């Protein structure tokens, strides 16, 4: 996994992208406490205790880092075969 700093809150997480569509993010406590979107405590999602599903700032940051080549996309080949309509 590769380190990436969020431009919004400076949280540093570890990211892995097997492909353009796949994303894996490992947080630690320090990064987690910086994030503005995920909430201060674990679980400010749809149910008390359930997680917020994503941080949109980080998500955008990961996509940007991948297109800029700052994060490796392990398989960046286009996918052959039929595409879902």
């Amino acid at each position, binding site marked *: 996994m590769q380190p990436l700093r969020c431009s919004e809150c400076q949280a540093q997480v570890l990211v892995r992208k*097997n*492909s*353009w*569509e*796949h*994303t*894996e*993010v*490992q*947080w*630690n*406590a320090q990064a*987690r406490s910086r994030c503005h979107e*995920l909430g201060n*405590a*674990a*679980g400010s999602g*749809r*149910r*008390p*205790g*359930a*997680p917020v*599903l*994503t941080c949109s700032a980080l998500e955008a940051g990961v996509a940007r880092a991948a297109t800029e080549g700052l994060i490796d996309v392990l*398989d960046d080949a286009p*996918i052959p*075969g*039929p*595409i*879902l309509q």
Partner: protein
Amino acid sequence: MSLETTGTSDIREIVTGTAPTRFARGWHCLGLAESFRDGKPHSVEAFGTKLVVWADTAGELQVLDGYCRHMGGDLSQGTIKGDDIACPFHDWRWGGKGKCTNIPYARRVPPLAKTRAWRTLDQDGLFFVWHDPEGNPPPADVTIPRIEGATSDEWTDWVWYTTEVDTNCREIIDNIVDMAHFFYVHYSFPTFFKNIFEGHVATQVMHGKARDDMRPNTEGQPKMLGSRSEASYFGPSFMIDDLKYEYEGYDIESVLLNCHYPVSADKFVLMYGMIVKKSPQLPDDVALETARKFGDFIARGFEQDIEIWKNKTRIENPLLCEEDGPVYQLRRWYEQFYVDVADVTPEMTDRFEFEMDTTRPVAAWMKEVEANVAARAARAAKADTDAAPAVQ
């Protein structure tokens, strides 16, 4: 070339490991609370022992260790006397807090006559016990969230299913990350799949589309388009799934519960239940009937899982491809419930996100569905031809 000289260094061997001897720390649902309020004591085999559950005069459910501390009698075979449970062996009375309250034939109760009372939670029609091998109470942030629909007239009552499964309960936990089995075992068609593990909560988000090859739509009924599911395990054994079925023209909202408690290292009781939101399309009775139909459908799904579990081996070192979910990270999360609180590491609880690339699976599954639909059409055409002479 002979078998003797064939190198085995490139053969991947399965490490089966052994199921843990201790049981997970956490809230475990024992079933619908109402089912324990019939005036009788109930026997629950769980966590490698036996529990007794009964309702006191106020209707409050109490749980004690099942075996009487006097001579080992089975309290669950006894009777409820007042607020207490009375042992069938010598009529020793035990209160819900675990104290021996009365021995009718004795001048006095011995000092330190106390058995284990289990912490309970009676919420939204469901009954839970807290299990912790260290004997600590649940931390304030380890709770079971409320399910608003469960106590609302706008939703149906629970439809509830219980079944015993002869394997270690980790098998059902693995399902949280196992996208592909939803296609092959349950005949659903995931198109979006994401996992999040954080603290004591493990989440699975899944969007699916209907499988025309497996579930043709009923003639004259609205066509099912797909489903959206947001499911979280709160602790080691209790999952709440906000599950929306999408039909042409409207959606059906439901809450699916999937929970279990361990009986022993190689047996658990699996329970699942459902409530459905009423709507103009689904007034009272229709909503309940729909919940039953969905429930029966989900029951078939679990039967398919159980058939797999009955025949598979435990595996500590699954061989994964990129389109498998994060099995190892999930098990790292699950491990927190099997170690002392002092030994829970940040790796077990730190937030981890995994969004699956579904491009390849979706492409492969589209092909398979198309082939199945074509094969069915061919079979139907052949049946028509074969049947033609008989019509004349």
